């Protein structure tokens, strides 16, 4: 195929179709990933698109010394919350007035409110798949992924532009297609006019 490509001049239209088809296939998976993540993070004000957070709050007996949680008190609180893991000494923080924070693990924490006399166990787990989709979409990896994401963005641009010229004549860019292109730009322009 390469040899024949070199010999015969490929018409621009054919090249356009080839680019559109093969880039489209190649990036379809990542486009779907980005779309799903886009939908998820678009509503970040209403929900957490990365984690499922489970909380369990219990009432506790008032602490004897609010600035020094005794082993006995800690053991009772852990039992009440049905937590088996014992925290490390240096992971108990008295960093706020009336609040004691205990980090059990990166995804597990206990917050003791010494005025309300409550203890809350918080357990966080990643939302399967969606967490990884967001990780890529929001460019959390940085480094090499930035370059690949740039390449993807450039390819999407090419897919869009070549898409404009897939059809000839009345159905194409200079006909109905062009009208739809203009129509598609109107909603963002209206929103810009209202909100910008």
């Amino acid at each position, binding site marked *: 195929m390469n040899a024949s490509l070199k010999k015969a001049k490929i018409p621009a239209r054919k090249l356009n179709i080839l680019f559109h088809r093969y880039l489209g296939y190649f990036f379809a998976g990542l486009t779907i990933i980005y779309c799903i993540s886009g939908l998820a993070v678009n509503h970040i004000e209403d929900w957490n698109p990365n984690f499922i*957070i489970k909380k369990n709050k219990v009432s506790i007996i008032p602490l004897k010394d609010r600035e020094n949680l005794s082993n006995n008190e800690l053991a009772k609180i852990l039992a009440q919350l049905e937590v088996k893991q014992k925290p490390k000494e240096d992971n108990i923080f008295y960093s706020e007035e009336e609040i004691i924070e205990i980090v059990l693990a990166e995804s597990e924490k206990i917050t003791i409110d010494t005025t309300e006399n409550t203890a809350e166990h918080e357990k966080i787990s990643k939302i399967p798949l969606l967490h990884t989709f967001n990780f890529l979409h929001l460019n*959390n990896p940085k480094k090499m992924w930035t370059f690949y994401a740039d390449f993807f963005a450039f390819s999407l641009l090419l897919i869009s532009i070549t898409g404009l010229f897939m059809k000839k004549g009345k159905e194409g860019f200079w006909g109905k297609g062009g009208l739809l292109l203009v129509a598609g730009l109107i909603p963002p322009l209206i929103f810009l006019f209202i909100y910008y």
Partner: protein
Amino acid sequence: MLKKKVLAVATLGLVSFANLVYAGDTLKLGEDLTITDKTKVSDVLANPENYLGKTVLIEGKITDVCTKRGCWLKVSSDKKKQKIVVKVQDGEMVFPLEARGKTAKIEGVLYKAEEEEQHQHEYEEKHNHEHQSGKEKEHKHKHDHKMKKKATYMFKPTAVVIE
């Protein structure tokens, strides 16, 4: 057969790439550290006005991280009843949840938080993961009044090393 080979190579490539992204126990965010002398968090908080706008290196254990956007983390002080909130603009750096309980070296600048920003942080911290029902909106309103009376300092990082 060819299809199987292509699939195998693609899978191997993906796995290697994932390993490359997650490699190492130390996480570096932002620029490289340029300061070696650490300033105690308690010193910064004792005289915050003296440190405003100055670049310093602090160190402490991370007690919490923003689970929504990874846009803030709380660093414990060397003294009780103290903490410092390290805050970035969304996307500038993303603090991972895995940072909780780990030690961070943070180079950056102390600044006086705008009421609105402080309020936003505190509110997100308390209601990080919940929908806003009518009751919560009412609570937010009350919380808003309470926060306006406080002057708070936050830390804007340029370099973060989490170990």
